[in-house]
């Protein structure tokens, strides 16, 4: 048996879950309440972790040496410039922390992108074995990959009149078929992903272990209340009109 506050928490979770699900029926007040709470919580939750990070960093290592303390203070001062974006007259100051962030981020990615995303992909592409006498099917698959990769690259590479060139039309078509098959595959996986999320919520509503069993009665009660109010409100409005 759970304590009262935990039970209230379970009822809140069930209410919010079902509140969002009611949008499947139509726009309604339950949905609007859940949506408003979601927006608020989503904005508020991350602050805890960022501030904790700042506090931890101050405790160690930034408060250990005078130079580092100055560095920390400077970082906070530069960080405060983020908020210049809310005032048009000093908006230009907002660009400074942004520039530092973008510059460092680009540098961070640039130093290795040529290896991890370019050379490491070109290498297996070049090493594809196109002739395997004992495995003709694998040879065919390798030949297909060998042709598909450059065709998709070329499809995006040439724009405008480049596509009018006769050989490019063949490449374009081949690339489009490749992409359609690839998109279909990704779509199939997206179906699994989205249903997985819904299944998780359904398991919670039904109180399936390790979810709290108290969620199930809460689910039936709140679902009934929401359904009755939604349908009742609809009937009332229809009668009125």
């Amino acid at each position, binding site marked *: 048996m759970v304590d009262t506050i935990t039970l209230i928490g379970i009822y809140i979770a069930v209410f919010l879950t079902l509140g969002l699900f009611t949008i499947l029926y139509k726009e309604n007040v339950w949905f609007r309440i859940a949506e408003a709470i979601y927006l608020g919580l*989503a904005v508020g939750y991350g602050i805890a972790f960022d501030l904790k990070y700042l506090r931890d960093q101050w405790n160690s290592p930034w408060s250990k040496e005078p130079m580092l303390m100055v*560095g920390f203070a400077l970082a906070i001062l530069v960080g405060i410039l983020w908020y210049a*974006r809310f005032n048009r007259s000093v908006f230009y100051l907002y660009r400074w922390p942004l520039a530092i962030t*973008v510059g460092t981020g680009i540098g961070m990615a640039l*130093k290795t992108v040529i290896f991890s995303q370019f050379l490491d992909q070109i290498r297996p592409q070049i090493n594809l074995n196109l002739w395997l006498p004992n495995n003709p099917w694998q040879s065919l698959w390798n030949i297909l990959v060998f042709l598909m990769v450059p065709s998709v690259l070329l499809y995006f590479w040439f724009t405008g009149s480049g596509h009018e060139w006769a050989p490019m039309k063949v490449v374009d078509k081949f690339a489009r078929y490749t992409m359609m098959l690839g998109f279909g595959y990704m779509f199939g996986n997206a179906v699994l992903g989205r249903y997985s999320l819904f299944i998780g919520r359904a398991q919670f509503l039904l109180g399936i272990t390790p979810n709290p069993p108290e969620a199930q009665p809460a689910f039936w009660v709140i679902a009934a209340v929401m359904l009755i109010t939604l349908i009742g409100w609809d009937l009332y409005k229809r009668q009125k009109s």
Partner: protein
Amino acid sequence: MSSLLKRIEIPIFLTIVCCLLQVVPYYFYWKPLDDFATREAQWMNLIVATATFIGLISLVQVHGANVQKRSKGWYFSVVTLVCAVSFAIIGLPLPEYGLGSLSYWYLFLYNNGQVALSQAQFSLLAFFMTSGVYRAFRARNLESGLVLGAGILTVCYNAPAIVATYPFFADIRGLLNDIPNLALNRAVTIGAALGAIILAVRTLLGIERGYLRGGGD
């Protein structure tokens, strides 16, 4: 002085210096410079963490105005503001006052609010996807037929009972994964790498300034 500080060259210069600071020591190792680059990256993390209130302030601006003007549905804005501010306060890293991300009330709000709502919000996509599949997934021509075919074969593979009963779906899925999907995504990865390099070069040359836009000047 103010007009000097407003010059766009300052952030462009900062971008270039910070970018080179990360790239140069990787290719031309010199310990003091590498140490400095490491410290700069750690320092930059502090700057990014300081930006944490931007979302909250924007929210207060938009929804505060709603409440002030008593716009339509302003009471929902009150709910949003109360939730955002109270969650932010409860999450303040002051464990000595019973606050912080490990505090009882933070976890209460997170587990019963954030988890429930996030999951419910994204699981709605399952419904929209199902109705979208039914309405739009038509083999009108060869290309849409290919999307449909590949999609439906993958769906068959992803259903545990189907692939357990008809194991050949695993082979088909393997082909889809290893040939068109690999080719498409390898091309995208290579293209994205080239794009990232070009973007970086443009930024380093000061040609790419899109990220500095806004503010009316």
